[in-house]
């Protein structure tokens, strides 16, 4: 996490009646592409709303670009573009009219050519520009929302499930666009999504939260290092006797036989490496291959959430 920090939550707590949505959450939003991940109801959307001054924290301090998220929210909103999961527009307006209105409200009136260029960038069909938004498909609304978020060249774009309504082809294009804007225009992103492989592909900083608390933060490598379980694929002959012995080992988290191979998830890699040869010889088996499965974001996510 070497890049510049543009936003920070310090022990932020947010309660809705008896429900605690954020429970002393501390996190850092860095320059670059940040991925905000967590199970359903973990507090991702609450954190986004809080950062834009739509809700007020009960305790703690939330800042973006050095401004307080509640009292200076207008200053923050000048620098931030946002696409919510729940897309809402003035349905009686056309796509171009909606963008024109939002550009005026953002204080960044852009010419018709610039607005059309923005719509072209998100690949919204030209024929749809002058059609009422009420008649748009879910995908078209999603792309219009993205264009709206990019209006006025924001320093940070917050995207809540940006690809949820898109087909695989358009998903890839949107992810390419995010990478392009980050590299060419130095736009930072905070992307909240459940499609982890996509997030993993584009993000360089990950924020994993659960039950309103931070579980992990950093680059994928840093997160994997902190992951307490590691998966191995072990090919041995005969498989049954080794499996029976491994089952009783305390550091083994999970064990299954898939395609004549043992899939072993362990908590202590060192101990496993030390004990495996002994167990194989004890079972009178022969070892063909041991392979460590490279952890991905999904593995980190599952392991961290289960651990919590």
């Amino acid at each position: 996490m070497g890049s510049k920090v543009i936003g920070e939550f310090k022990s932020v707590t947010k309660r809705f009646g008896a429900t605690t949505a954020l429970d002393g959450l501390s996190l850092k939003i860095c320059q670059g592409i940040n991925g905000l991940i967590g199970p359903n109801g973990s507090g991702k959307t609450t954190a986004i709303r809080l950062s834009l001054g739509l809700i007020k924290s009960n305790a703690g301090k939330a800042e973006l670009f050095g401004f307080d998220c509640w009292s200076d929210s207008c200053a923050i909103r000048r620098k931030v573009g946002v696409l919510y999961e729940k897309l809402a527009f003035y349905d009686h307006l056309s796509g171009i009219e909606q963008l024109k209105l939002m550009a005026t409200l953002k204080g960044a009136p852009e010419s018709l050519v610039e607005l059309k260029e923005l719509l072209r960038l998100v690949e919204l069909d030209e024929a749809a520009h002058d059609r009422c938004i009420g008649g748009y498909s879910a995908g078209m609304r999603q792309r219009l929302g993205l264009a709206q978020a990019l209006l006025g060249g924001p320093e940070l774009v917050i995207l809540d499930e940006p690809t949820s309504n898109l087909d695989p082809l358009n998903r890839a294009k949107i992810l390419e666009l995010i990478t392009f804007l980050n590299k060419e225009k130095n736009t930072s992103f905070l992307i909240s999504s459940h499609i982890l492989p996509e997030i993993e592909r584009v993000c360089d900083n990950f924020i994993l939260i659960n039950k309103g608390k931070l579980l992990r933060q950093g680059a994928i490598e840093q997160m994997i290092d902190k992951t307490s379980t590691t998966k191995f694929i072990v090919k041995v002959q005969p498989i049954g006797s080794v499996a029976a012995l491994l089952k009783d080992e305390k550091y083994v988290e999970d064990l299954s036989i898939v395609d004549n191979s043992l899939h072993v998830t362990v908590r202590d890699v060192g101990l496993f490496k030390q004990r495996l040869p002994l167990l194989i010889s004890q079972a009178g088996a022969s070892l063909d291959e041991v392979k460590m499965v490279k952890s991905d974001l999904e593995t980190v996510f599952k392991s961290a959430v289960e651990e919590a």
Partner: protein
Amino acid sequence: MSVRAGLALLKAEMGKVWGRPILEITVALMAVMAIVSVRPLTEIVLHSEFPAAFQSAITGSVSSTVASLMLPWVIMCAVLMSLSFARDYEQGIMQSLLSVPVSRKLFFTIKFVAVILPLTLLSWGFTTFFVGMTFYSSPWLVLQLSFFALPVSLLSLMFCGSISVLIALTIKRTIPSVLTALLANFFFWFPTTISTNSPVWEGSSYANYLCLTPYKGALALLDKMLGIVPKIVTPPIAESLEYNLSAGSFAALLLFYACLLVIPMFVYFSRRFEICE
């Protein structure tokens, strides 16, 4: 926030609130109520007795006509105002708009004005036109009415609108908010259908206070400003609040009702209201 941005938002809001067929329904409702409530003054009198007969005929007649015209705009104001706030909250438009640098104060004002302004103009126009049709023989009365009906409509609508905003921001669900706002406003409108003269005459104590309710108070204010007095002014009526309170008192009362909820709602929305739909 520039004036240009405010006007652009107002235009978009009015387009949404008054989009087809809302404006048409409102005009039709007002026209129907006006047509069924306006009655010609049919009394043949000697020319010398005309002023007294006219005064006697208009007593209660202006109030009842305006009260009937009040019903459609109270209904439309309750529906549109609660729809405007609750639906925008529920559908996420409020969240989207307050995520750009629009101040909450401006947002609230624009949403309020987008409903109130066209309704005020419509109710003022209909009241003046249809009451004027009845009392065309007294152009001075019609002129006075057209002058006084505008602030009275505006203040009454502010009260109606502010109750609806309170309900919408409390319930935060479209259909329950609309129904509750309708019921609440109908509750306050209902006293306008009660002629307080007879109950006061019969010694009913509650009737004396009905003129202090918002819409009944607005009608009493209109009557006072137009110089319309009850036909019979004997002790029970002569001692009643409606007869004794001045136009200024009713104006202050109406102003109080208009601001009673608008100001707290404005402050609450600007400073404390949270958008978490």
